[in-house]
């Protein structure tokens, strides 16, 4: 090995070019084309390559991007006024015609874009002049702005059937070796300051241990997927690396299937909630890299309503189960058994073990079943589960409450996988869609949150912190709570 290493040192171990930043991803983005991109890693890069009319800020509010301003002359019409200085990498200005073509392409059934449903309320897109876009809706729909983050492509390429990655974002895609690496270079025409990092290399490193070793060795400069707590602790001791923790918005919860008569009983759901020691779980499972959650929206979100986190009270949990009529056949025997389905991720497996122990303490026996993600996802979608650990990532508009908890939104229509039914929640989440005034909308979603905290259709666990490990040479980078890499536009290497 020494001989081989000595003979070949420098042959293929060329360091990345000076000025290059190497970011490690666990898997290939499935698509970098805004018309087709639906996966998390694709979303993390979308903000580097393309710009949308609007984008979400850290509080989940829509803020201007390509659109300088917008107004609503009536509840069915949005008028966007574009910035004139955004250009594609070849210097061509981004105009209203590009916006119209991109939206029309996504709406075209022939393209079979997965984003077509999100634009279902859009009846027409007009471009009266190069700097103005008018969007007409079929009905008043407050969450529509959330769909205006769609990356804009050049009009001439908007209907291409192959992958189109050209955009007016701070970077452009130079090369892509699928499964290996993507190379991004600055967009010389980016109006908010041409990025200094040149190039940004996205390396695909599937194994977590290897990502950590690459960081330690200097082959990778930035990892945003939080490694295991023990590894983070080890990396924190490396002088060349900086471990940064910031509050995140990813919401981890226990999904409950309310089709099961035991879980349909609110007392049982409350007992499960009271049995879990969230502080302990955060400490044991995540090494304190999370905050115990009260619900879907994190405190940073504009629509968050302050609430008291669920207590840890096993004694009351046992009383509730007694009252619900679930008693063990004999002392020490379980009251009933539940099957808990989880993915094979180490953190999720540890969570399953902890939940098994804590529910066992109140007399609920838990059988843990570990599945590969595709199988777990299919089971949850088809309602074939009792308990499952899941997460919501990248929550922006609170209309997610409608999609996840309205009684009509059971799969395949939406995300109400536990089949929760509440007329109050249905009414409130419908009203939230039709209300534009921010203060009134906020009040509506505060009531939704209180309702769900009472009904407990899911058991909130925690909001995961963003744990970013980076080289100390990287300056000016602000990690985003959602994990997107837009912060690299303003970053540089010492």
């Amino acid at each position, binding site marked *: *090995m020494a001989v081989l290493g000595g003979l070949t*040192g420098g042959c293929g171990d060329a360091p990345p070019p000076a000025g290059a930043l190497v970011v490690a991803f666990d898997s290939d983005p499935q698509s970098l084309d805004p018309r087709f991109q639906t996966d998390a890693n694709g979303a993390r890069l979308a903000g580097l390559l393309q710009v949308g009319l609007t984008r979400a800020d850290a509080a989940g509010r829509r803020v201007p991007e390509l659109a300088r301003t917008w107004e609503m002359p009536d509840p069915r019409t949005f008028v966007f006024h574009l910035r004139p200085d955004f250009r594609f990498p070849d210097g061509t200005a981004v105009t209203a015609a590009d916006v119209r073509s991109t939206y029309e392409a996504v709406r075209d059934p022939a393209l079979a874009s997965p984003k077509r449903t999100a634009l279902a309320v859009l009846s027409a897109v007009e471009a009266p002049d190069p700097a103005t876009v008018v969007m007409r809706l079929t009905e008043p729909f407050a969450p529509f702005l959330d769909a205006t983050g769609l990356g804009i492509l050049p009009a001439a390429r908007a209907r291409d059937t192959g992958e189109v990655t050209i955009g007016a974002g701070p970077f452009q895609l130079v090369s892509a070796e699928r499964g290996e690496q993507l190379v991004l270079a600055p967009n010389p025409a980016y109006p908010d300051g041409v990025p200094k990092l040149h190039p940004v290399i996205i390396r695909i490193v599937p194994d977590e241990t290897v990502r950590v070793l690459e960081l330690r060795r200097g082959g990778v400069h930035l990892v945003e997927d939080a490694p295991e707590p023990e590894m983070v602790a080890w990396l924190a001791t490396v002088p060349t690396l900086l471990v940064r923790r910031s509050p995140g918005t990813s919401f981890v919860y226990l999904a409950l299937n309310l089709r099961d008569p035991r879980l349909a009983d609110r007392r049982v759901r409350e007992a499960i909630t009271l049995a879990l020691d969230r502080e302990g779980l955060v400490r044991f499972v995540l090494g304190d890299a999370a905050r115990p959650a009260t619900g879907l929206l994190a405190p940073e979100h504009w629509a968050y309503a302050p609430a008291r986190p669920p207590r840890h009270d096993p004694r009351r949990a046992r009383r509730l189960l007694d009252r619900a009529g679930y008693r063990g056949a004999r002392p020490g025997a379980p009251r009933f058994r539940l099957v808990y389905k989880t993915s094979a991720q180490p953190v999720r497996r540890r969570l399953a073990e902890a939940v098994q122990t804590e529910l066992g303490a109140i007399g609920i026996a838990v059988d843990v079943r570990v599945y590969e993600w595709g199988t777990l996802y299919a089971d949850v979608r088809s309602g074939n589960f009792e308990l499952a650990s899941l997460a919501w990532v990248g929550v922006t508009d609170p209309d997610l409450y409608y999609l996840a908890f309205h009684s009509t939104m059971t799969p395949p229509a939406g995300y109400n996988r536990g089949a929760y039914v509440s007329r109050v929640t249905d009414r409130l989440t419908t009203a939230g869609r039709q209300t534009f005034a921010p203060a009134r909308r906020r009040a509506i979603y505060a009531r939704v949150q209180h309702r769900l905290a009472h009904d407990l259709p899911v058991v909130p666990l925690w909001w995961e912190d963003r744990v970013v490990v980076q080289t100390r040479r990287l300056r000016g980078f602000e990690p985003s709570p959602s994990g997107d890499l837009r912060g690299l536009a303003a970053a540089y290497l010492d």
Partner: protein
Amino acid sequence: MRALAIRRLTLLLPTVIGVVTLVFAFLHLLPGDPVEIMLGEWAAPADVAGLRRELGLDRPLAAQYVRFLAHAARGDLGHSIAFRAPVGRVIAARYPATLELAAAALVLALAFAVPLGVLAAVRRGSALDRSARLASLVGVCLPSFWLGPLLMLWFSIRLGWLPVSGRGGLAHLALPAVTLALGMAGILVRLTRASLLAALGEDYVRTARAKGAPRWRAVGVHALRNALVPVVTVLGLQAGALLAGAVITETVFSWPGIGRLLVQAIQARDYPLVQGCVLAIGLSYVAVNTVADVLAGVIDPRLGEDGR
């Protein structure tokens, strides 16, 4: 010899069809809808149905199978769902990496295992023999998901000699090749030693020695030639497995080969790509083993004559 080659080649087709049939059947037993995974939860039902129709997933399983076989016979393996590119092109882009890794591991394993096996057999019972047997046992027992990171820790992090992962030049190749080669070398050392010991006890070796052949000639020319027949057969199986993609090693070392591609395809429920990968793997496996069988016939012409 020619008869042996023809016999092996005629077995190729049914073997490959058998492999493809099994994979097709098992793949469709997996839960999870590839179209839903591809389009996401929010796809319009009409789009889901359209894509399912386009991919032929709305047809009966038997019709899908016949269609796949017919297309494969024409060299059309379909379109990858995840990569949005022809399956043949996606596989062709990854295969060189697998070939490179497999060749390096094979060369390393052979260069290490055959001489050590011969020395262990010739000096049977010596300290060298005992050490070789112990080393080969360790090589066979170490799992690559453990050995890989261990080698990285030592040679990349502690000594800083080699890169941790990725594909580049020879330096990138060293650790994954050694990880793969160690297990194979362990098997080959033991096999070479055992075969050579058996051959050394044969009458023809004693006769050669009685006729005055020097010891190196009796071992190196007479005994080793026959001892290599099982080694070549096992080598063929091992090389076939390497070409099938060292899934774990390729994943651990971020090596962009066919093994990693297969894992990606399975995770994305990319049926056309999984089928294409397995077909390519099956063909490689059968081809390498056919070559190994023919090679064994060259070393020992009796194999071709008696029809074994």
